[in-house]
């Protein structure tokens, strides 16, 4: 019987015997090390995940193995009873690798879906925002005088946030724009870094330029603007 298979059976058999638990602690620790090493190897061989996501996968790898250990033991006992087990081989090692590889791929897909959803949410929000504020369609990048006057009554940072996200600062009359920047206590906007930013980085850079903690702060302000604009004009007027 293979080394790790022996350890796995020991751990499984002692699960309901607290007195033996201390004795198999070393076995459990050895399985933990093996699962963690295998998870690190799977990640560094495939590199589907970013390191920050891979750290979570690696940290959770051994607990995943312990959670489904019963399935391995049941299959192993069946195969042993049927006489189809190779006594020299270590089926637990092969099983651990398969489980962790599947988990890694599942993790990658889930993160991929999450990222795609997040990008879609941002896109929808920008689109919805453009329609709410400016009237939708191609007119998204123009601001009418009435809209500018309405924005004039908003919080100073909120104005810059909206204009920064929609990138339509060139539609604000120069005099009004200078006053808005003065009121928001900003010297120069947009900075070169914002102009050069790629799509996914824009809000982060905007947050930095407006001295807002992070991109979540920008998102919160945008949500408040959308909510305010959904109400009738009379109730939003100061």
């Amino acid at each position, binding site marked *: 019987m293979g080394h790790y298979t022996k350890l796995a059976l020991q751990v499984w058999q002692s699960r309901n015997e607290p007195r033996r638990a201390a004795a198999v602690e070393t076995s459990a620790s050895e399985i933990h090390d093996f699962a963690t*090493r295998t998870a690190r190897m799977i990640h560094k*061989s495939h*590199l589907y995940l970013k390191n920050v996501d891979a750290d979570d996968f690696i940290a959770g790898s051994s607990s995943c193995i312990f959670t489904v250990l019963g399935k391995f033991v049941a299959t192993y006992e069946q195969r042993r009873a049927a006489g189809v087990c190779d006594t020299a081989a*270590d089926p637990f090692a092969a099983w651990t690798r398969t489980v962790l590889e599947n988990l890694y791929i599942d993790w990658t897909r889930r993160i991929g879906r999450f990222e795609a959803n997040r990008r879609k949410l941002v896109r929808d929000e920008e689109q919805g925002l453009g329609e709410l504020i400016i009237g939708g369609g191609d007119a998204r990048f123009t601001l009418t005088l009435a809209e500018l006057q309405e924005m004039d009554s908003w919080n100073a940072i909120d104005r810059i946030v909206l204009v920064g996200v929609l990138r339509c600062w060139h539609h604000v009359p120069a005099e009004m724009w200078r006053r808005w920047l003065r009121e928001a206590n900003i010297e120069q906007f947009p900075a070169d870094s914002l102009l050069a930013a790629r799509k996914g980085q824009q809000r982060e850079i905007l947050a930095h330029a407006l001295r807002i903690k992070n991109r979540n702060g920008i998102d919160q302000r945008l949500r408040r603007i959308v909510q305010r604009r959904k109400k009738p004009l009379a109730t939003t007027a100061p």
Partner: protein
Amino acid sequence: MIPSSSCVGSSPHSKRTRFTPCAYELLQRDGQSRLFGLVRDQAVSPAAALAAGDELIHRLEQWLRSVRLLPEHLHEASPASADALRHRTIENRMQAWAALLALDHAYAAAVESGSHLATPLAKFVDQVLERIESLDAMITAHAPLLRPVISPAERRRWRRLLAPQYREAQLPWLCD
């Protein structure tokens, strides 16, 4: 001829034998075959993987040092040498990836077959992983320095060379 375990010893990379360079070459070729999509059925034997240990650890440390010093070296280099340094960094990391793939298969085969060399190989794997993680952290920190030689076309070219299962990988050395 692949060396027996007796000439490898319990601490593989503390001993350099006359087999070490050819064992490393074997590991590298096996890994490159996997990485670039040539069919490989059999893994490198655990003894050969252990024999390559000294060379692989030595190279990983050398690559780590050169990435750490990359800003200074680029500062002193002419534009042509600077680009050569950048390309060399990328090629070194690809070599590390290939070696790790071969080692991964060798380790899995050793453990699953119940080989007595699985335990020393596990220690070696831990040390290689540790160094590759440090190398990646350093490359990520210096990724903007590599950007001048990573055009979208260059990135596509590298990806096309890889086996299909590795084309979606997130590669910090290609500024992903």
